[in-house]
């Protein structure tokens, strides 16, 4: 339980960084941390005590894998989610660089021209 909770703490820290920090790069870091937390949570959810990786090795019976293997589905989800995170990050960094070129600063409070 405490492990689940700690990953939620990590999420909250990421979101805090995302919302409260003024620096654009810090905001990106916030999103990256939030993504770590969700990936961590998913993998934790799929773990089993004394579990083995969900890969059938040579000479291993399927029954052994069923008995001991950790949940493979969250792992597939996490792989997808890592890629999505990478995509978001690429777009964010591109936006961030472009904004730096236009505004000559990373400070969100100075960039603020729109009223919201």
């Amino acid at each position: 339980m405490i492990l689940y909770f700690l990953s939620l703490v990590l999420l909250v820290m990421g979101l805090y960084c995302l919302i409260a920090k003024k620096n654009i790069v810090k905001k990106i870091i916030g999103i990256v941390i939030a993504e770590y937390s969700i990936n961590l949570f998913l993998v934790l959810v799929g773990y089993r005590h004394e579990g083995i990786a969900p890969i059938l090795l040579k000479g291993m019976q399927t029954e052994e894998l069923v008995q001991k293997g950790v949940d493979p589905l969250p792992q597939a989800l996490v792989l997808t989610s890592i890629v999505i995170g990478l995509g978001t990050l690429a777009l964010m960094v591109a936006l961030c660089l472009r904004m730096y070129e236009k505004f000559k600063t990373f400070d969100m409070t100075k960039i603020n021209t729109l009223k919201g």
Partner: protein
Amino acid sequence: MDRLEQEIKDTSKGMTPIVKTVVRFVIGIIVIFGVYIVLYGHVTPGGGFAGGVILASAYVLLTLAFGKEMGLSKMSNTGASLLDNSGALMFVIIGLLGYTGGYFFYNFLGKGDPFQLFSAGSIPLANIAIGVKVTASVFAIFMALSIFGRFIYKAAEGDESESEE
């Protein structure tokens, strides 16, 4: 090899000769490892995505060590985007080929024996498609970002900065 030797001695571009020499030896191993990860994704840990990123990071390493001209000489931005598009298209086509079995994304090839390279039907094909796609797109995005990053300071006019695919 002559050109590579020259590149290594040329201190105006990229990092120090030590880094360049090490990179020269390591790069082949990284590429082979990446290809292995892509091809054997259905048997061992790894797969198209991880392998693709490894392959792309070989290019990234080359670019960091030798300067962007070296990286671009191996794969131009246009080539990268072509590969990117065709990798993605290939994956959709694999999905559509499933209609030969009656369903979208039906595994239309024979299963084969487990633990072999040519087994698991369309999975290795899909791995290759994704590997190509990821390599190209990660390389393209790295090039675009790093070239653009430099141009913020230089603000010089150059055709690379066009970052049009």
